[in-house]
């Protein structure tokens, strides 16, 4: 009897647009090739970076013979959850002190978003989520597969290469009452364009008046802040003023919590601790009362158990070890500053290189945008040209990862941009 596969009619799935860039890059034999696709930090030598403090934490864990490999609870490592909540909401957050926050360990930002979305699809009354235009490529899929229907709100203005604040207010103002709204807490991916604090306040008031539920995606906490902290008053920054406090990146989130309302927040430690592969993240739901938070936590467990039973311990243990030790915490911020310094330096070098070449156009957004990426404003054709002629790989929306650049490769990129802009308009 013919036992053909029951899945014979299946077709090959399209490559993930972001990870597919790396696949294409790997296939390219050119010695000058440059990978500016995925947002993973690289050193000046183009190598992935393991933070020293992470290495030390890992060694401590390995050397601790008393540690055993038992299942974590469904909600994950308790220490990690508490410390993560403090990191984003503030150590003195009244919501935390009142036990109004349910925090569960999840698999990085993606996992936190998915678990949060599945919870909302089951228990929330309005199954529409508004996401910014543009946003991280994986957002629509995560929410759709969780059972939410996805709509967009205007965010980026290509003309100014800044925030389309009017459009944002209009679209959120017209949103169905009670709908969920995805907000990038800082260092918007892919544009690097963030609202100012004053703008955040207006967004908050509008959302609360319409009963819109905030769902924060915080993938870049601390990284963006440090970048911005270093630049101080030298570079006009989107948040409006300089700061010495590492709590700044979380400020938009804390504004929403401070008004006593409810919200969700997904955290990732992929970028800020370089723990991409270990899948470390947390989902927090801020509730009106401690009783509600407890019930919410119990329902989150029902989402997680049939998905993967309980989360992986390794990355969360590393994070907890670092966050709870003040010396290691300080060392972490110092290493982050070094990473941020390098990103800022790359931004400046690229900007200077384009100015030196007299490349037409206003390129100041390269040094204004926040975080790891620059949304160059190059169009699909220009991007394809740069890949074909200069072996430079980026996502087709023109987003480049500054962390993938080095002093050696900046001139090559500047040449490519110059050629693309002058030859293809």
């Amino acid at each position, binding site marked *: *009897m013919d*036992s053909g*596969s029951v*899945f014979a*009619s*299946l*077709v*090959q*799935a399209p490559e*993930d647009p972001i*990870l597919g860039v790396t696949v294409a890059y790997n296939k390219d034999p050119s010695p000058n090739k440059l990978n500016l696709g995925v947002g993973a930090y690289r050193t000046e030598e183009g190598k*992935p970076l*393991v933070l020293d403090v992470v290495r030390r934490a890992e060694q401590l864990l390995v050397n601790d013979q008393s*540690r*055993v*490999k*038992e*299942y974590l*609870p*469904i909600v994950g490592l308790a220490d990690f959850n508490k410390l993560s909540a403090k990191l984003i909401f*503030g150590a003195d*957050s009244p919501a935390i002190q009142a036990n109004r926050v349910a925090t569960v360990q*999840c*698999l990085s930002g*993606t*996992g936190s978003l*998915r678990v949060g979305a599945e919870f909302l699809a089951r*228990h*929330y009354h309005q199954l529409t989520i508004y996401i910014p235009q543009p946003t991280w490529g*994986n957002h629509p*899929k*995560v929410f759709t*597969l969780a059972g939410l229907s996805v709509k967009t709100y205007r965010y980026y203005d290509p003309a100014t290469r800044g925030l389309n604040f009017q459009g944002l207010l209009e679209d959120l103002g017209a949103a169905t009452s009670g709908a969920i709204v995805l907000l990038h807490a800082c260092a918007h991916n892919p544009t690097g364009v963030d609202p100012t604090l004053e703008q955040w306040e207006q967004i908050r008031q509008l959302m*609360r*008046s319409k*009963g819109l*539920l905030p769902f924060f995606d915080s993938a870049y906490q601390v990284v963006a802040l440090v970048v911005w902290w270093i630049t101080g008053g030298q570079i006009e920054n989107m948040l409006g*003023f300089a*700061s010495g*406090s590492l709590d700044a990146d979380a*400020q938009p989130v804390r504004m929403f919590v401070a008004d*006593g*309302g*409810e919200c969700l927040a997904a955290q990732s430690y992929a970028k800020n601790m*370089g723990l*991409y*592969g*270990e*899948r470390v993240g947390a989902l927090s739901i801020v509730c009106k009362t401690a009783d509600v938070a407890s*019930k919410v936590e*119990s*329902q989150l*467990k*029902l989402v997680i*158990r*049939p*998905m*993967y039973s309980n989360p*992986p311990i*390794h990355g969360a243990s590393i994070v907890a070890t670092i966050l709870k030790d003040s010396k290691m915490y300080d060392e972490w911020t110092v290493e982050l500053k070094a990473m941020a310094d390098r990103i800022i330096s790359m931004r400046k070098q690229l900007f200077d290189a384009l100015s030196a070449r007299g490349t037409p156009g206003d390129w100041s957004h390269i040094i204004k945008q926040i975080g790891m990426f620059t949304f160059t404003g190059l169009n699909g054709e220009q991007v394809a040209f740069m890949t074909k002629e200069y072996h430079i790989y980026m996502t087709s929306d023109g987003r480049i990862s500054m962390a993938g650049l080095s002093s050696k490769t900046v001139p090559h990129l500047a040449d490519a941009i110059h050629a693309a802009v002058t030859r293809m308009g």
Partner: protein
Amino acid sequence: MRRFFTSTARRRCSTKNIAWWDHVLPAPKDPIFCVTEAFHADSSPNKINLGVGAYRDDEGRPVVLQCVREAEARIAGSRFLESNSAAVSSKMVEESVKLVFGQDSDVVNEGRFAGVQALSGTGACRLFAEFQRRFHPESRIYLPDPTWSNHHNIWRDAQVPAKNYHYYHPDSKGLNFSALIDDIKNAPDGSFFLLHPCAHNPTGVDPTEDQWKEISYQCKVKNHFPFFDMAYQGFASGDLEKDAQAIRIFLEDGHLIGCAQSFAKNMGLYEHRVGCLSILCNDSKQGAAVRSQLQQIASAMYGSPPVHGVLLVSTILSNPDMKSLWIEEVKMMLYRIQKMRTTLQESLENLDSPLNWENITKQVGLFFFSGLTPNQVEQLAREFHIYMTRDGRISMSGVTTGNVNYLANAIHEVTRSSKEETKILCNIGA
């Protein structure tokens, strides 16, 4: 630098005072994990945890395998933490599937399968369930009665309806083989059947080799899709190859199976969430297509699995010395379990328990499906501080030389009266 705005003063504005979650009810507790919770809450020095299926040594302590410690030392700090380490992933997948399909398997050599790492057994099952729903949206899954409780949750959350097929015979405490075969025959052609290839959870009752051959044959006649959940390879016989026998039979018969593998128990990697999902295909091209679809599903759920566990498994399985050590350590774990089975049975027999306890040593794997009623289970917890799941499933790894006699006495106590009921019923029948 100016101080940052850190005021947490309550802001007044026209917010709708909506409490979003007031209608959320407390969720029922997970039937397996709540046993451990109850155990932890108990302060009795005699307490015994026979709930979750995690291996313990003879002092009741969790164990880190030596091969795992060596692998950890090898990889700590020397690798780069990169989620797209494709070479490591595919190595791990290849070594994993060889465990179930055979070291010299044609399927593996010719790449006629789709394999992805998954978040342990749960994650592998869930990935498959989502995949099944996407490409066979009208299908359902046939689950053995009984099965691991989370199987029902997994397929339900993937929105694939489930149906039970006969498996365990409560009277004989063995396999209800004829009813099982009937269910296979009566299911619509091309149905999806979930099978435990060895050490059935919770019953410990496995088909014989001949019975597996018959099951495979009947599935072939009906063109069913066999999905194996391999959570306990090594824990049935101590021999990894022997424990994969059912899968090999199906492969020989030409089935294109699916298989979920877990390294939680047999490598002791519980909290690292390491497993593998594989689906056999007609050729490597189709394998690539299926794999790409599985990765899409995973990427919208959690991105990629954590690299630490993947590295551990890959290191151990690729290194002949470490793999040999692992195989020995699996044998040692099973040896202790089997010893506890023998001891418990002997203790109960020595107490002159009139009930038949031969199933303790007949059943295989980590569990003894005791046949104790929910009332008896509750009595054991209340009076003797002994904890197990309500279905009477006892995790033998919680039994030690130190507590086996206490356990035997307790079981004897709670089953005395059931013996009297049986006697009365027999008299009535006579």
